């Protein structure tokens, strides 16, 4: 197995510019997997699959249509999906959606096709604010800390490495 990769979206650093959503839509026929939500007082929240370490969707799927690939991405076997939406019910972020076109659940696959060609997820490469980090856990941890240090004090948090790791892996099985 290759080293587990993480895709971390830092709400504290995101400026809501929608670049991630744009490039994701561009490489997915106009349907983005990552989306920016805006709260009533205009805080921007990028929402995407966290490829959780202990992924509830993967555990609940009755047909084992959800699996983890060698980089750690949580993926869908489209031909095995029966569209029961059990995964959507248990996902803490409401991420999976049913695609009438594919006739299966779809969601972020951490740019699977791009990874095969040696390219990284497009959102992380293009986010101007550097709010999206991709890579092995320790690397993501360091990059998030380095980037948060540039934030204004209101967008910084006193977190231990352990606490920040929990936020990155979203599921605590590695800890």
């Amino acid at each position, binding site marked *: 197995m290759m080293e587990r990769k993480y895709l971390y979206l830092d709400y504290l650093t995101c*400026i*809501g*510019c*929608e*670049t*991630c*959503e*744009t*490039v994701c*839509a*561009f*490489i997915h026929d106009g349907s983005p997997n990552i989306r920016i939500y805006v*709260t*009533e*007082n*205009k*805080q921007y929240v990028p929402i995407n699959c966290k490829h959780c370490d202990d992924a509830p969707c993967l555990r609940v799927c009755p047909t084992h249509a959800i699996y983890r690939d060698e980089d750690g991405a949580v993926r869908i076997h489209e031909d095995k999906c029966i569209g029961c939406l059990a995964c959507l019910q248990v996902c803490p972020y409401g991420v999976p959606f049913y695609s009438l076109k594919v006739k299966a659940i779809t969601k972020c696959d951490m740019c699977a096709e791009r990874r095969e*060609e*040696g*390219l990284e997820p*497009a959102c992380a*490469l*293009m*986010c*101007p*604010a*550097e709010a999206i980090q991709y890579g092995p856990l320790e690397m993501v941890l360091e*990059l998030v800390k*380095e*980037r948060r240090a*540039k*934030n*204004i004090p*209101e*967008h910084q948090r006193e977190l231990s490495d352990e606490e920040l790791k929990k936020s990155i892996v979203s599921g605590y099985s590695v800890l």
Partner: protein
Amino acid sequence: MRGMKFSFLCRSKPERTGKRVAIIGAGPAGLTAAGYLVCKGHDVDIYDKMPEPGGLMLFVIPEFRIPVERVRLGAKELEEEFEVTYYPRTKVMEGEREDEGDEFYERIVKLSELKEKYDAVLIATGIWNVRRIGIPGDDLEGILSPLELLFWIKGHELGYVPKEKVPDLEGKRVGIIGAGLTAVDVAFECNRLGAEVEMFYRRTIREAPAGAYEINILRNRGVKWFELVTPKRVIGENGRVKAIELLRTRLGEPDETGRRRPIPIPGSEFQVELDYLVFAIGMAPTPPVNGSYIATDRRARIVVDSRHMTSVEGIFAAGDVVNGPTKVGRAIKDGLYAAVSIDRWLRGEL
């Protein structure tokens, strides 16, 4: 830190097509279009009037939102890995017009010249014209353009602007009219430089385009927030700003944007003393033409068809210069789709 990867669609430059594209404006729209076009094998030259590529992301938006290195390394990768050539401090213009940031350019090239020299041209020159409010006294000394002020502050940090040029704001009273992204960024920077900042907005915090979240951060830092007020005139003394006279407003019926229209209340005038005043009430497109050569609409936006092509065959346009003020993501989207069209047009498929 790594740079934005504008060429995110490929690992290295494929076989060259031999086609040459000129891009005018190295903001997010222009750089992203360049990234797409080099991935398709075209040769790209980028002209920009500023000393360095990056556009508003580099010269205006504060470091805590978009780190300088993130943009710099991204632009550099296009140059080093994909042989993009930059022509900085070069203003492209057909006709004449003064825009914000003009103090940085050293030479002028005509749009029509680029059209002759290249197989295709993309215009991505943004909105570098600050709207004037048109009230008595709005040309007094001490009234600063929000873009200029932000260029000076960031340009100084980037090493392009001498210290004398940046107004010493320590302890000064700075008034800002507006509540959009620009108003808020001016407020952050002036607050950081030690000014006493007051913001004036004609609607309420709930309608403020920058959002209550950002404005409340500023208020917690001591920025004063006045809502439901609109400027009536600027009062000067010896040619310099001394105070602003404001009228209170109330909100009426929703206007065409769906927000409730502010209605000034007669007789409610009051004055606030100030040292500097910034009108951050909007910006307008700055196409590299002035009323002729390519078609623009009455709001100065470049008119394009579904292929992002302007009224001149072979000249395309993308980003804020086409759409008016938007966001980085929208400019990037436009740059990408315009580049798709340029590539197809160069291949004779469009």
